[in-house]
């Protein structure tokens, strides 16, 4: 069921300790900053967070990590020039890291939403990120078996929603939003604008409303 929610606080209120939370965005583009701040405020702990990175600077996901609320990160690129909170937790052994090549991360998220139980990908074959994983030669190439990444909740950012929850995005801010919306049991989208149903061309909708549970407008 779709709900339009007034505040980001209410939108994340149902997130429980121990949840797996997907957070959209690549760099700042598509990052649902307000929803992440609300997740900080709601107090949920022992989170597994799926995001391309592991927080930057002193904001958003980086603060969640600093405050010890994240048990495990599943991401492709945790180390950045300003990922000091993750770096400190990691070196102290206080956070788990599952490092996944970016395209495998995207495909595993897509697989979860698409009901695919697992797949073989050439990416990572012969590298330490394939250690311990099943491999097979397919189409003449070494390939690694990867499994879907499901989530309890996805927090994403889109440009516009209509009255049935259809979403469109803007430029490279699209990135992980559409696949995370499909992979999570409950998807919360923050949007810049809500238009009447029928106000989005059916040909251009990127995320159909079936994948969206809660929408909150963020100014």
């Amino acid at each position, binding site marked *: 069921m779709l709900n339009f929610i007034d505040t980001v606080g209410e939108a994340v209120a149902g997130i429980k300790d121990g949840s797996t939370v997907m957070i959209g965005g690549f*760099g700042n583009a598509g990052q649902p900053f307000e929803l992440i701040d609300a997740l900080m405020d709601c107090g949920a702990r022992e989170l597994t967070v799926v995001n391309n990175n592991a927080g930057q600077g002193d904001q958003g996901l980086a603060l969640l990590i600093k405050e010890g609320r994240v048990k495990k990160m599943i991401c492709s*690129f945790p180390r950045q020039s300003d990922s000091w909170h993750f770096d400190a937790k990691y070196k102290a052994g206080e956070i788990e890291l599952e490092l996944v090549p*970016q395209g495998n991360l995207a495909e595993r998220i897509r697989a979860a939403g698409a009901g695919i139980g697992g797949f073989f990908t050439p*990416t990572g074959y*012969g*590298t330490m990120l394939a250690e311990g994983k099943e491999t097979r030669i397919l189409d003449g190439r070494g390939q690694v078996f990867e499994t879907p990444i499901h989530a309890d909740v996805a927090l994403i950012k889109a440009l516009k929603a209509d009255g049935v929850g259809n979403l469109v995005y803007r430029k490279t*801010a699209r990135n992980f939003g559409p696949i995370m919306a499909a992979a999570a049991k409950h998807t919360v989208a923050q949007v810049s604008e809500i238009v009447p149903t029928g106000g989005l061309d059916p040909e251009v909708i990127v995320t159909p409303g079936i994948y969206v549970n809660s929408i909150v407008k963020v100014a």
Partner: protein
Amino acid sequence: MSIQTASIQTSETPLGRDDLARLVARDIKPGSFVNLGIGQPTLVSNYLQPEQNITLHTENGMLGMGPEATGDQIDGDLINAGKIPVTELPGASYFHHADSFAIMRGGHLDICVLGAFQVSATGDLANWHTGAPDAIPAVGGAMDLATGAKDVFVMMTLLTRDGASKIVEACTYPLTGVGCVTRVYTDKAVFLTGPDGVTVRETFGCTLEELQALVPVPLTAAPAVEP
């Protein structure tokens, strides 16, 4: 820049980063779809000519990426894989991350250009991890790029600061991809790599013999058929 008459072409001096970027740009076939990795490979975009009709892919979800944005062009929703604001060219398109990496993994890109720590004689690539036990690993799209493109070009200095060759018999750093590199552009030479070993297409400020003295794998001159 280089003497075009010999099967091994030479220039009088090693190439700087910009000259090397210009050379890579010149070697990209017209009409190609290309992904330029973060760092040195990004310089290549400065030397692509409009008449080459090259389409740039950025793995965060775009084909038809234009030059770096400046001034009023800067838009936080339009960035490249290095998280630098960029621009959009006519004919651009946007797509989500799974579709973007499908373009890459599916073998639809003609070329990707990457930096490297090491390249082996058979084209293995190491460019994501120093192997230091206390390093925080971060891979990003490196393995996907290395595995997906039809041709993987590497740009790097030939030698480390300590004078060791980055072209090696077998990589000692953790691998990014196996047998994926087809060409290596360095300040001292352009190498072609593949299952049969390493050949040299051009040298810059050195002879093949001098180059061989620096590189611990057998080098031969490449046939003159390369562009």
